[in-house]
């Protein structure tokens, strides 16, 4: 299958430079430490009554670690498009790919999937590191129970990211715009502080972001909730999978038509 070839190619190029892999992990860890220590400094300790009452998790490092790792994964497909595809557009390799009989959607998905898998590997290391230094106890059953929710989240993230696939083909340089978007997701999905402290309208808006529900479901699993207790989040996620795949695909089809008029290189 062509998609496997795309993934293999992306992996080869990424892991060819061990130093880059190492620095990516380092960036992930430094970023995490900053947020957790900052949060603890403000709270004056690792436990927060406000967090406990509004989200069920009172332990700030656990709260932040789960949110942070999922946030990183949720923006991975977006990053794959706005940086990965843009790089190929700029260099000209994208056109070499398009000229092949493989479907463009397969190429684009392959790239997002590669980045998502690579980021998952990086985040596994970051997560393990965070769990270790903040003494977060994780059981095997929590991990096992999180897995299906994680897969469902990935589906939603891929669909959400696909919106950017079409946009980058057509508009080329949207990295800075996407970055604003990525960081505002930190804000709007309750990654480092509970959504409850935000105005009602923000809380409503946050519901259309897959990350919000993914984070809330997995945090639920971490404090021992059963699937039926996190059913609302899962229902939302399933709904958003369909919504974003549809929107993403529609935008892609339109962008592809426009791009074929302008040319895939062209700058």
């Amino acid at each position: 299958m062509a998609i496997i070839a795309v993934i293999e190619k992306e992996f080869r190029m990424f892991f060819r430079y061990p130093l880059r892999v190492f620095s990516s992990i380092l960036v992930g860890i430094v970023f995490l430490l900053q947020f957790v220590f900052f949060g603890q400094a403000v709270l004056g300790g690792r436990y927060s009554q406000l967090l406990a009452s509004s989200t069920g998790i009172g332990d700030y490092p656990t709260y932040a670690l789960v949110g942070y790792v999922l946030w990183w994964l949720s923006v991975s497909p977006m990053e794959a498009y706005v940086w990965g595809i843009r790089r190929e557009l700029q260099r000209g390799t994208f056109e070499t790919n398009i000229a092949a009989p493989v479907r463009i959607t397969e190429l684009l998905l392959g790239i997002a999937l590669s980045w998502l898998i690579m980021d998952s590997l990086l985040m596994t290391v970051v997560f393990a590191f965070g769990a270790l230094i903040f003494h977060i106890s994780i059981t095997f059953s929590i991990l096992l129970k999180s897995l299906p929710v994680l897969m469902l989240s990935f589906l939603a993230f891929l669909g959400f990211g696909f919106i950017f696939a079409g946009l980058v083909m057509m508009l080329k340089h949207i990295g800075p715009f996407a970055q604003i978007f990525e960081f505002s997701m930190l804000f709007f999905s309750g990654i480092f502080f509970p959504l409850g402290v935000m105005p009602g309208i923000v809380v409503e808006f946050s519901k259309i972001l897959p990350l919000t529900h993914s984070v809330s479901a997995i945090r639920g699993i971490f404090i021992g909730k059963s699937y039926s207790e996190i059913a609302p989040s899962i229902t939302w996620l399933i709904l958003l999978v369909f919504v974003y795949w549809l929107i993403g695909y529609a935008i892609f089809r339109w962008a592809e038509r426009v791009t074929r008029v302008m040319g895939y290189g062209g700058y």
Partner: protein
Amino acid sequence: MKAIEVRELRKSYPKKIPLPFRKVQWVEAVRGISFEVRRGELFGLLGPNGAGKTTTIKMLTTLLEPSGGTAAVLGHDIRRDAREIRKRINLVAEGERTLYWRLSAYENLKYFARIYYVPKSEEKERIEGLLKLVGLWERRDDLIMNYSRGMKQRLAIAKALINDPEVLFLDEPTLGLDVQSALFVREFIRKLVDEQKKTVLLTTHYLGEAEELCDRIAIIDHGRIIALDTPEGLKRLVKGEDAVEIKVRDFPAEKLEKFPWKLAVVKENTERGTVTLRGQVDEDDLPKVVELLVKSGSRILSVEQKEPTLEDVFIKLTGRD
């Protein structure tokens, strides 16, 4: 069936992204061209920068939507049957970076074999055969970024043969190569047509290359085909007319436009301040040309009669080099 059939093909590019409700201006790049390429033919599109060569290739390889006219490759409409066409053709695009520099030659070909649906059972043999054919087998595991320009181009050609295409499109295949590499590439292309019976459409702005290599040539300028024939046929256009090369010093180039003869600058040596002009000038007119040049302040260094070449056809048709 013809390998390629082009009827009144047109292309305009929007100056801005054509979003709904946005008024955009369009630039005409190809203004209605028609030609046919037979199977097993080596056909050349010859034209200066901006003539519309790349635009034409991109439309025929289904990478770009035409604005008007029709074209068929191997009997398939380029608008409707893009996928079918892509399976049976391939191209070497313009530019140096059409392959992955961070992969080795072998890894690049393996990747493209997969996205061209080369049967798994043939993959290994085909890649090995191609790498040997272009002389890169020994260097197969080196990253492309360490390749010379010539090696990169040879690999781009190997990639273009990965699906054993019936029609091959080559956009300025020798651009930027040194003499040795360019020679290799030209001989290689000729062999593809003679020995493997491939159909090749190539673009070039080197007259010598087109003359030496192509079975037929279409001269394209400002998006229009202004002549189409065999190299011999094209040269007949200037037969009987003498080509003259005049080498001068201190030549004011802006004067050339007002000359009543079509002369073009074919060589310029800025270090020495000399310029070589070329064009068709009758024996009777020659003294007048020389006189005019002298009057405009230049010093004549030499005047030579030359055999007419494709260059003279080009100068005659376009008024420039």
